[in-house]
């Protein structure tokens, strides 16, 4: 699993809201559209994410409809497993000193 994919999953799992739009995910995960959307579509095709259009009328909103993404049960399980797998690696990293990582 690539780092941007983990960022997307991490963003969705850590979000206080149930669903986030593509633009919001991109903003929080600091990913550009060209990187983000292929990942979102791939995860959705794999059943890790589900998406829906916002229900309001775009004419009334005066802007294009947003599409919201949320992590499915399967996605949450798999993502948690992936993060757990990575955890030991992170533990080995040097502890931050004064807010910055101290490289030996």
């Amino acid at each position, binding site marked *: 699993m690539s780092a941007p994919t983990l960022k997307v999953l991490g963003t969705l799992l850590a979000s206080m809201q149930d669903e986030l*739009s593509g*633009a919001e995910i991109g903003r929080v995960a600091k990913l*550009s*559209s*060209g990187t983000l959307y*292929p990942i979102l579509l791939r995860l959705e095709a794999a059943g890790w994410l589900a998406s829906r259009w916002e229900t309001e009328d775009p004419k009334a909103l005066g802007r294009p*409809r*947003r*599409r919201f993404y949320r992590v499915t049960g399967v996605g949450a399980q798999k993502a948690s497993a992936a993060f757990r797998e990575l955890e030991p690696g992170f533990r080995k990293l040097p502890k931050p000193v004064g807010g910055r990582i101290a490289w030996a």
Partner: protein
Amino acid sequence: MGLIAGAALTVIGGVSVRLLADELKAWMPHLTNRLIRHAVGKLPADQRERLFEEWSSDVDERPGDLSKLWTAADCIRGSWVMTRERARRKARDGASRVELWLGRILGLLEERGFILIRWRVLRNLRKQVARELDRASCDRLVEAVRVRVEVPIREGVRMTVRSGKARMSAKLIERGIAQVLKDLAQGATPPPPSDDPP
């Protein structure tokens, strides 16, 4: 005189720049729209409408005109990434299907002695097949064998093939298959097998 000319030039320059900026600003929505249309145009038909709306919404949420333009341009990269991923997936599926059947097909052809193949320790099958056989050829081969050949097919023949020094091409495989089917239909006796052992 020089001072007056300089002042006039400054005024004209300022006005021109402003006009140009206004013109660009006015064209910006059209330009971003064109970029997104171009990006979705490369995608499969079932994804175009969805991503056009989604990307338009994403671009719309960006604060400035330049960042809108940048996001729209980046969508082209996204579309390129998706197209490339799809092509890779297709090639991988095609290759694994061919891999599944190729051994059997070649085993049959060799057993019947209709093609002359020097069997070698075989490598790079996946790469070779992915390059040389498109999905349609693969499907044709699989169908040809599945539907029309009702003879026992030798199992477990191991794979990638080199015909002497030349690589075995998709055309050769297809020609071999066609020949086998034709001869089987006519009830012909196959020629003696190749003297190269499997």
